[in-house]
C-alpha cells in the first residue's frame, strides 16, 4: 500500500512546477483574460506539447509516453496551480481519455499521435442551454452519420479541432466524434465567467460525424468519460486551492491592521485552518480517484464523484476565502484573487455542477449495495 506520489512522480511534478512558475506567471494568464482576441496562450501550448505532457498517459504505440495516469494527475495539479490558459483539459482529460476508453483502433491511430503533438484540440459538447441537459432528451440529432443541432456553451468550442458531441441517433443517445473543420460547423465565441478559457456556441448543420463507442449507449459512455475527466479536474482544483492558500498567506503575513499583521488574528487563522482541511480532504479523495483511474477499478464511479465533490468544495472555498483575506485589495483587478474565483467557478461547472455529482455518487453507492450491507447494531462506542 502506498497513498502518495512515487519518487518518480514527485520528480516529474517538480519539473513541471519549475517550468510553469517561469513560463506561466499570472501575466501570461492575464494576457489571455484581457485580450478578447486571444483564446489561449499558443506559446505555452507549444511548449507543453513539445515536452510531451499531452501524451503522458497515452500508450507509446500512439505516440505517447505510456506512463501511469498518476503522472498526468501530477501535471494537472501544477496546471491548476498556475491557472494555465490552455485547452489542456478538453484535449487530454476529455478527448484523449475518451478515445482510449471507447475509441476504435482506427480512431486512436488517426487522432492520438496528432493530439500528442499538439495539433489537435478537443472539446466536449453536451450542454444544450439553460439548466441540466439530460442525455435522454437531446435535441442535437445524428441521422445517417450527419450531426445537426446546437450546443451551448462548449468550453474550448471556439478553438477545438475535434468535438465529442452527445447526440440522439437512430439507436438512441450516443456520443459522436466530429471534425470541426468540416463544412456545416458554425461557431460563435461567447463571453465567459472565466475568460482565461475559451467558450463558444457550436452549431452543426448536417456535419459528418462518427460514433464514438457503441451507439445507443451514450449515457454510460458519457458517464465513463466524465468520471475519468472528473478525477483529473480534481487535481487542478487541488493545485488551485493550494495556490490560494499560499497567496492568502503571503498577503496576511504582510498586511497590518490595528497594530499587528492580520495573520495574527484568530478569525483569519481559522479561515486558513478551514482552507487547509478542505484541501486535504480533497487531496485524499483525489488520490483515491487517481488510483481507481490508473487501475480501472470498478469503484471508479464513486471514487470520481467524491474526488469531484471534494475538489469543487475545496477550490471554491479557498478562492473565496483568499479574496476575503485580501480585503478590498482582493476585489481589485490587480490581485490574482479574481483569477482563482473565476477558474474555481468554471471548473465547478465544466463537468456539471455539484447537485449532479452528488446524485451520481449516491446512485453509485446504491448500485454497490451499501444499503443491504450497512448494518447498525447500536453497540459501537
Amino acid at each position, binding site marked *: *500500500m*502506498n*497513498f*502518495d*506520489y*512515487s519518487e518518480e512522480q514527485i520528480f516529474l511534478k517538480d519539473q513541471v512546477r519549475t517550468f510553469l512558475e517561469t513560463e506561466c506567471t499570472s501575466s501570461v494568464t492575464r494576457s489571455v483574460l484581457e485580450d478578447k482576441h486571444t483564446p489561449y496562450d499558443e506559446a505555452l501550448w507549444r511548449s507543453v506539447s513539445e515536452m510531451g505532457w499531452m501524451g503522458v498517459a497515452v500508450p507509446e504505440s500512439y505516440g505517447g509516453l505510456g506512463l501511469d495516469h*498518476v503522472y498526468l494527475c501530477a501535471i494537472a495539479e501544477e496546471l491548476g496551480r498556475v491557472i494555465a490558459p490552455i485547452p489542456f483539459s478538453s484535449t487530454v482529460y476529455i478527448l484523449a481519455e475518451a478515445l482510449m476508453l471507447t475509441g476504435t483502433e482506427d480512431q486512436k491511430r488517426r487522432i492520438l499521435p496528432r493530439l500528442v503533438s499538439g495539433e489537435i484540440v478537443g472539446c466536449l459538447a453536451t450542454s444544450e442551454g439553460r439548466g441540466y441537459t439530460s442525455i435522454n432528451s437531446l435535441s442535437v440529432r445524428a441521422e445517417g452519420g450527419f450531426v445537426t443541432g446546437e450546443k451551448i456553451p462548449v468550453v474550448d468550442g471556439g478553438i477545438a479541432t475535434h468535438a465529442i458531441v452527445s447526440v440522439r441517433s437512430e439507436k438512441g443517445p450516443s456520443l459522436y466524434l466530429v471534425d470541426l473543420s468540416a463544412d456545416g460547423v458554425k461557431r460563435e465565441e461567447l463571453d465567459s465567467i472565466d475568460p482565461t478559457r475559451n467558450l463558444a456556441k457550436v452549431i452543426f448543420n448536417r456535419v459528418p460525424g462518427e460514433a464514438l463507442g457503441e451507439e445507443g449507449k451514450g449515457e454510460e459512455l458519457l458517464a465513463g468519460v466524465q468520471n475519468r475527466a472528473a478525477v483529473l479536474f480534481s487535481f487542478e482544483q487541488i493545485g488551485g486551492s493550494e495556490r490560494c492558500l499560499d497567496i492568502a*498567506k503571503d498577503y*496576511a*503575513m504582510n498586511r497590518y491592521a490595528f497594530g*499587528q*499583521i492580520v*495573520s*495574527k488574528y*484568530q478569525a483569519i*487563522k*481559522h479561515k*486558513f*485552518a*478551514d482552507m*487547509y*482541511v478542505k484541501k*486535504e*480532504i*480533497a*487531496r*485524499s*479523495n483525489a*488520490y*483515491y480517484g*487517481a*488510483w481507481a483511474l*490508473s*487501475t480501472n477499478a470498478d469503484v471508479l464511479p*464513486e471514487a470520481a*464523484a*467524491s474526488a469531484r*465533490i*471534494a475538489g469543487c*468544495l475545496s477550490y471554491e472555498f479557498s478562492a473565496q476565502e483568499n479574496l476575503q483575506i485580501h480585503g478590498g485589495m482582493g476585489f481589485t483587478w490587480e490581485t490574482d484573487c479574481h483569477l482563482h474565483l473565476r477558474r474555481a467557478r468554471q471548473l465547478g461547472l465544466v463537468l456539471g455542477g455539484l*447537485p449532479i*455529482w*452528488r*446524485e451520481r*455518487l*449516491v446512485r453509485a*453507492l*446504491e448500485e454497490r449495495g*451499501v*444499503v*443491504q*450491507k*450497512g*448494518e*447498525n*447494531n*447500536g*453497540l*459501537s*462506542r
Partner: protein
Amino acid sequence: MDFRDNAQEAEFRKNTRDWLAVHGSIFTELKLAKYDREKELEIAKRWQAAKAEAGYACIAWPVEWGGRGGTAMEQTIFSEEEEKLGVRFQYFSIGLGMCLPTVIAFSDKETKSRLVPPAVRGDTIWCQLFSEPAAGSDVAGIRTRAIETEDGSWLLSGQKVWTSYAHQSDYGIVLARTNPDVPKHKGLTMFWLDMKSPGIEVRPIHMASGESDFNEVFFTDVRVKDSQRLGEVNQGWKTALLTLDNERLSFGGAEGPDWEELMSLAATLPSGMGGGSVLKEGGFRDKLADFYVLSEGLKYTRLRSLTTLSRGQTPGPENSVGKLISATQMQRVANEALERLDQYGILADEDFLSDVGAFQRNFYWGAAMRIAGGTDEILRNIIAERVLGLPREHRLDAEVAFKDLPKGI
C-alpha cells in the same frame, strides 16, 4: 499510488480475519445482553487479553513491552478488520493511545517492564490527569502543586476534573506545578501515579449524556516517588506535548454510525415529501453524498499519514484534521438521522432503541468529542500555527510568573 494490500499486508489481513473469525464470537454475548456497563468492561478486558496473547494488542510496539514489533500499517489493517465486528472499546485507548507512549518515551527500563505489559494485556486501565477547573484548553495553566520533600519524593495537592475513566483506573499520568515563580510553561513536571495511593479521591461527574464516564479527582498530600517522574523537573510541558499530540492522533477516527448506517436507516424510513423512502429525497441525498466524501476523505487522509510514517517521517500536527472533522461529522450524521426519524427521534427509551441507539448516543457524544482532546477552536489554532506556520497570538502570559497571572472562574 496503490490502495491495495501488498503481499505481506494481504497475508497479515488474512491471518487477522482467520483469528477474528475464531475469537470474535465473544461479542455475540455482548450483543445479546442488554446494554450493561459491567458486562461490557468484563468483555473488554477478556478481548484485550486475547488480543495480547495473539500479538494483536499493540501491534506496532516492541515485543519487549508486550507488542508485536509490527508496522503501523498492520495496526491499521487489524483495526479495520476488528471494526467490522461492530464493537470498539474505549477503556484502553487513553492508556495505550496516550499515557503509555509517554511512559515509554520518558521512563527507565525497569518502570517500562513493570507498567507496559499489563496495560497491553488489559489488566490495567489508565487515565490522563491534565485538565483542571481553571485550565482545560490552557493546559499549562494548571494549579495542582507537587512539592519536593526532604527524602526526594514529592507531595501532590490539588484538583483535576473531567478525568475519563478515573473511577476505573489503576494508574494515571498527572501534570503538576513544581515552580509557580516562573512563567507557566517553565514550572511544570509530569509523573505517573498509582490511583490507589493514599490521598486520592475520585468523584464521578454526571455527564450531559446522563452517563458518568468522567470524574473529579482530588489530591491531598499524595506521596509520589521521584522515580515516577516522567522527564526532567520543570520540563513537564515537553512531556505533555507528546501526550497531547498522541491524543489528537488517537481521537482521529470516527466512532459509531456513519454514512453507511445513515443510508441504511434512510432506506427504511418513509419520506414526508410524498411516496418512497427518505433515501429517495434529493435533499437527503445531497447531504449523504457530502457525508460520504468527508468520511472517505478522512479515511484516506489517515492512510496518507501512514504512508508518510512508513517512509520514516514522523506524524505531526496535521493529524489534528482528523479529530477536527470527525467530531462534527459524528454530530451532523446523528442529527440527520434524528431529523429523519421525525418525532420518533425524540424517543430515548431503551425498549425502542435497537437500531437508533447508536445515533442517539452520538447525538451526545459528538458534542463531547468537539471538546475532549482539544476544542474545535484549539485545533484550528494548531493547524494554523503549527502546520501552516502562521504567527502565534500575543501571549500575555509568556513572560509573567505563573503566580502573578490574572485568574477568573
